[in-house]
């Protein structure tokens, strides 16, 4: 019977093209707006860490004094990062911060390019966050111990510097110092850029990676936030490294809950030790470990405004559905005499109801497909007019399924009352009058 109902639905749509087009248009506009906001919301709230999400933890320390901020700061001090590295509990761990500078090749004709997205980190960063290499590999552990001038390039920067060719073994100059390229990454663009949310969560992926061990030597400046809770006179880089300023991020990989508990205990002991040295003066001194989901929530990667916008678009969809409901009621009741005949010759209320549900579902499907086109157009417009990141305005593939499903569901909801009205109408009323 489904295909029979589908055939009747198609005939009905063709029979009243204007009315059907109005209904499809109503639902498509609602769906278009809902899918646009939902798509942006989804792209913002995606957890790009995948299956490692529950194993990667951002480490936060309440190291500030009693009269400072009443919260965990997203970053920690350089000295705490340095000390935490001494734990052998995490399988992988890395302190890091962002810096920047001019990059050039050995080719004298190549003009230096400013790179504002340079990550200072150690070699655990690459396996922790799932970066894969196109050429070469990460620098080895000895570089993190003894500080050698080696770098890893992203595919993007390698294209800029070496036209995408294998550049492993070549030399680049970063702030006029020569570094040897040891690896080139495959294209990589986590969205949001969860490992460092200080510089914006989207479209802000690093392009060059330099060893953390070089920081005290090269005195890389922090191109991210630096938070201080007390006055400190900092006149040189060494003072910055030993200061109470929060400017580095610290991530660990803990594979089991036992490891998490053990690490938490270890850091707790570290805090007690530091208290004896006169640091961690607040009674609230503690450690907070947040996995990626928690980290994205703590940092409010999806702004409240965005949630409100999704809510408003759903309300708009409801308004469209109410309009559709009215049009459906008019269309279905106009068909009541035919339904009276069908009922008289043996159709049950359930069969009539199903017939109309198939019809509204078909209109919902058309509305959903048209709504997708609206959403695609809206996202293109947003990208062009408001210069939004393409990672946010790219129409997610899941929406190709979600949009028709929401549209069909919404149309079915709107169609329930009109279908119920027409299938419960007394057929005898129309049989005489037809």
């Amino acid at each position, binding site marked *: *019977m489904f295909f*029979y109902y589908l055939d009747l639905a198609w*005939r009905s749509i063709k*029979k009243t093209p204007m009315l059907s087009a109005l209904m499809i248009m109503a639902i498509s506009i609602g769906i278009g707006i809902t899918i646009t906001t939902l798509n942006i919301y989804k792209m913002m709230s995606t957890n790009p860490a995948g299956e490692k999400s529950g194993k990667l933890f951002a480490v936060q320390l309440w190291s500030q004094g009693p009269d400072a901020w009443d919260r965990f700061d997203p970053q920690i001090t350089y000295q705490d990062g340095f000390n935490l590295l001494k734990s052998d509990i995490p399988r992988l761990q890395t302190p890091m911060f962002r810096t920047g500078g001019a990059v050039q090749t050995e080719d004298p004709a190549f003009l230096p390019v400013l790179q504002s997205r340079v990550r200072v980190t150690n070699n655990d960063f690459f396996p922790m966050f799932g970066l894969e290499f196109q050429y070469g590999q990460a620098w080895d552990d000895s570089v993190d111990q003894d500080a050698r001038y080696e770098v890893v390039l992203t595919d993007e920067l390698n294209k800029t510097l070496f036209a995408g060719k294998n550049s492993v073994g070549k030399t680049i100059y970063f702030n006029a110092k020569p570094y040897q390229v040891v690896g080139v990454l495959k294209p990589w663009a986590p969205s949001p850029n969860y490992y460092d949310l200080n510089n914006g969560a989207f479209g802000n992926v690093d392009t060059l990676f330099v060893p953390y061990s070089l920081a005290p030597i090269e005195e890389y400046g922090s191109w991210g936030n630096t938070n201080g809770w007390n006055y400190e006179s900092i006149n040189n880089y060494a003072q910055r490294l030993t200061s109470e300023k929060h400017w580095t991020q610290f991530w660990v990989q803990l594979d089991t809950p036992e490891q998490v508990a053990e690490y938490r205990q270890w850091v707790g002991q570290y805090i007690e030790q530091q208290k004896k040295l006169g640091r961690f003066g607040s009674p609230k001194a503690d450690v907070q470990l947040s996995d990626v989901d928690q980290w994205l929530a703590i940092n409010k990667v999806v702004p409240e405004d965005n949630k409100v916008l999704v809510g408003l678009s759903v309300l708009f969809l409801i308004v469209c559905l109410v309009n559709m409901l009215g049009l459906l009621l008019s269309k279905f009741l106009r068909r009541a*005499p*035919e339904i*009276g*005949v*069908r*009922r*008289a*010759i*043996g*159709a*049950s*209320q*359930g*069969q009539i109801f199903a017939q109309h549900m198939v019809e509204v579902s078909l209109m919902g499907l058309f509305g959903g497909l048209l709504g997708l086109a609206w959403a695609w157009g809206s996202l293109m417009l947003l990208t062009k007019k408001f210069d939004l990141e393409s990672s946010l305005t790219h129409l997610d593939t899941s929406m190709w399924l979600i949009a028709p499903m929401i549209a069909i569901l919404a149309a079915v909801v709107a169609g329930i009352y009109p279908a119920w009205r027409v299938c419960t109408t*007394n*057929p*005898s009323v129309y*049989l*005489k*009058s*037809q």
Partner: protein
Amino acid sequence: MLSMKNISKVFKTDLVETHALRDFNLEVNEGEFVAVTGPSGSGKTTFLNIAGLLEGFTHGDYFLDGINVSNLSDNKSAAVRNEKIGFIFQGFNLIPDLNLAENIEVPLRYRGFSAKERKRRVEQALEQVGLGARMKHLPTQLSGGQQQRVAIARALAGEPRFLLADEPTGNLDSLMARQVMELLENINQSGTTIIMVTHDPELARRAQRNIQIVDGQVCDFTMYQPNAARSASHSSVDKLVANAQG
């Protein structure tokens, strides 16, 4: 076959109660051709709607084929209508968007017949009413008499035991009315029970039994015996088909 005992039907509004049927009793035997007459507003259509399970009633019992159908669920009523009852209406009530074959197969679809069986029955029914060559025509392309014959074909396709006809010739001219009436008589002769509501005393006289309803009650029974004149006036289906095709 059909047995109504003390059926009452009351339509209520805030101000008035209208007794469409009161203590209505009727027995119709299998194979009978019963004409129902009566003045306008007497309750003929209400009786027909109740007999066809299109409307419920306030009091009484209704047995169809020995089964009490007084309180059937909607699904069961629909199944009984589909399997046992065929309807013929004054206004034909064909679905205008469907061609003749599609119109006739509507009840067959609800009954769950296979495509092959539906096709067989549709062809048979259309042949029976002399419109076998017009399967793909739309109802609007036919005359009133032809449309009524399609409606009869639709009613017959499910091979019902019981045909309910509400003024089947009311919208037809006298020639077409006679042809439709002859078709109904032939259908009745093949064993189908027919109850026909009509205002036309001439048509009523051609039925085996005439029931008059006045003020919602059966007030008169007249049993007609088939007579020579009536027999002579019968045309065979073959003749009808020949006329239609001619």
